[in-house]
């Protein structure tokens, strides 16, 4: 159930017309007046439109849309109310023949009894719009809302998200996966983050995942270009440009990552491994931070097994990864990776097996819930 302020709900139900804005692949906006219905239960907006229309064409290329719905006061413009909804559209031509589609048609007929007069086109399709952001105004007052799907009831402040920071070779991933099984939580992989970013309105191209693993290369490049003067002029220009672009991308994706992780943690029921979750979700009351470490010998052994390396190479591999992760956290968040104040719990895998470690975390989370 999606939550909206009541004022917004009323506007969405009473409004007669919605002004729909789509954008073409050349980023040319397109605005049209539309009849619409709002389903209070699902919090979704439905439109009827001919399949062969510019807006459908646009929505297929770019599902992002905006809708403006207004109620004008004929006497005093300061009493005008309105709402702008930014959402993601979904065109579903199978919907028309289903029971849900029938219900939507009935709702349309109830709201617009004379709609037949217009002689609707044969190829009408239902377009569903899932609101992502809402701005509403009454006269002079503007308010912005982000509808949040609530899986947990209000008032419950128990732990619903776990972040795990692990040393490479400490079997932290296995612990995280077992923990998900124990608690029925979802494991947040790279794909889950990218998908969440997408539904939040961020495309994959904009989303550059600056994870700890890939940071070493950037760190090296950074240091290399940071010298500046010793490089020839022409190269410096090119190099600087590239460096600036890279830095921008990193900062952008960091913002995206923060937004994605925050929204995931609000939904709850997730286990986030790595990606700076312990810092990005610091001070969030419903998040539990775990640090998993292991003795050096067992880490070397695990890496040798996993990647088929010899002992020297495995030692070097671990050294590189540790340094990369430490640098990543230092540079972007200014924290020390091993700072104990970042974590609620620290597990040494030299003393526990995967099963016990997962059970220990699950137990700690349950106890935290009872607080």
């Amino acid at each position, binding site marked *: 159930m999606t939550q909206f302020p009541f004022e917004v709900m009323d506007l969405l139900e009473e409004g007669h017309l919605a*002004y729909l804005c789509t954008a073409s692949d050349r980023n040319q*906006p397109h605005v049209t007046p539309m009849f619409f219905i709002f389903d209070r239960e699902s919090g979704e907006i439905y439109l009827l439109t001919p399949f062969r229309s510019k807006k459908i064409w646009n929505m297929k290329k770019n599902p992002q849309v905006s809708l403006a719905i*207004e109620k004008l006061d004929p006497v005093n413009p300061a009493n005008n109310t309105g709402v702008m909804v930014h959402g993601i559209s979904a065109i579903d031509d199978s919907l028309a023949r289903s029971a849900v589609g029938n219900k939507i048609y009935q709702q349309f007929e109830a709201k617009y009894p*004379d709609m037949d007069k217009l002689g609707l086109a044969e190829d009408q399709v239902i377009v569903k719009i899932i609101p992502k952001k809402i701005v509403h105004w009454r006269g002079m007052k503007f308010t912005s809302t982000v509808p949040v799907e609530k899986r947990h009831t209000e008032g419950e402040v128990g732990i619903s998200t776990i972040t795990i920071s692990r040393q490479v070779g400490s079997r932290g991933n296995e612990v995280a996966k077992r923990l998900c099984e124990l608690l029925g939580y979802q494991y947040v992989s790279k794909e889950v983050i990218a998908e969440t970013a997408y539904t939040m309105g961020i495309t994959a191209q904009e989303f550059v995942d600056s994870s700890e693993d890939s940071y070493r290369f950037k760190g090296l490049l950074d240091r290399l270009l940071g010298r500046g003067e010793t490089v020839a002029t022409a190269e410096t220009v090119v190099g600087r440009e590239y460096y600036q672009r890279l830095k921008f991308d990193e900062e952008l994706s960091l913002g995206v990552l923060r937004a994605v992780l925050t929204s995931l943690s609000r939904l709850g029921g997730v286990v986030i491994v790595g990606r700076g979750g312990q810092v990005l979700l610091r001070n969030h009351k419903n998040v539990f931070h775990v640090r998993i470490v292991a003795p050096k010998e067992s880490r070397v052994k695990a890496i040798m097994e996993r990647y088929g390396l010899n002992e020297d190479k495995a030692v070097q591999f671990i050294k590189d990864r540790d340094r990369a992760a430490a640098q990543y956290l230092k540079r972007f968040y200014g924290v020390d990776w091993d700072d104990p104040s970042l974590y609620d719990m620290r597990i040494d895998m030299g003393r526990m097996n995967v099963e016990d470690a997962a059970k220990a975390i699950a137990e700690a989370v349950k106890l935290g819930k009872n607080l």
Partner: protein
Amino acid sequence: MAVERVLPSEVTELLDEGFIGYLGTSGWDRIPHVTPVIFVYDGESIFFTTSKLAKKLRNIQENSRVAFLVDVRDISDLYKNRAVMIYGRAKIIHLFAHRAHPRLIRVLTLFLKKYPEYTKAYAKTQHKIPKVWKPIPFIRRLIVQIDIERFVYMRETQVVKVTQQT
């Protein structure tokens, strides 16, 4: 391009009659944005004002392509409407740099004539009007001009071809 000189009378009538226009913009993030604006048409271009803080201004700076819809209909009969959607290019006019420009003075006069209740009657309570609606320019406000490139004329949800006058 002198499209604006050959706009058919159906379209110019609508532009004169319409009280509120819906401006669609889309910035580099490609998230479309639609807002109601008050506007005037000076016979060539469409003008509206915006706050420097508005999202639409940021979008226009990133992408000057805009869509502008004027929809005239009576609430008592929702199904009878005339509308025109204009594709155009938005141009930001920094007011203080062109203060004495005769065309802009004309535009401001048109605003005062078309929206007296937004200007004169509310002059006393100016501080209460949302920044986005204040047609009286002050230091934070900018005028935006839309040069018309293409238009679609609609009547009762059907696109109607209207001939251009020469």
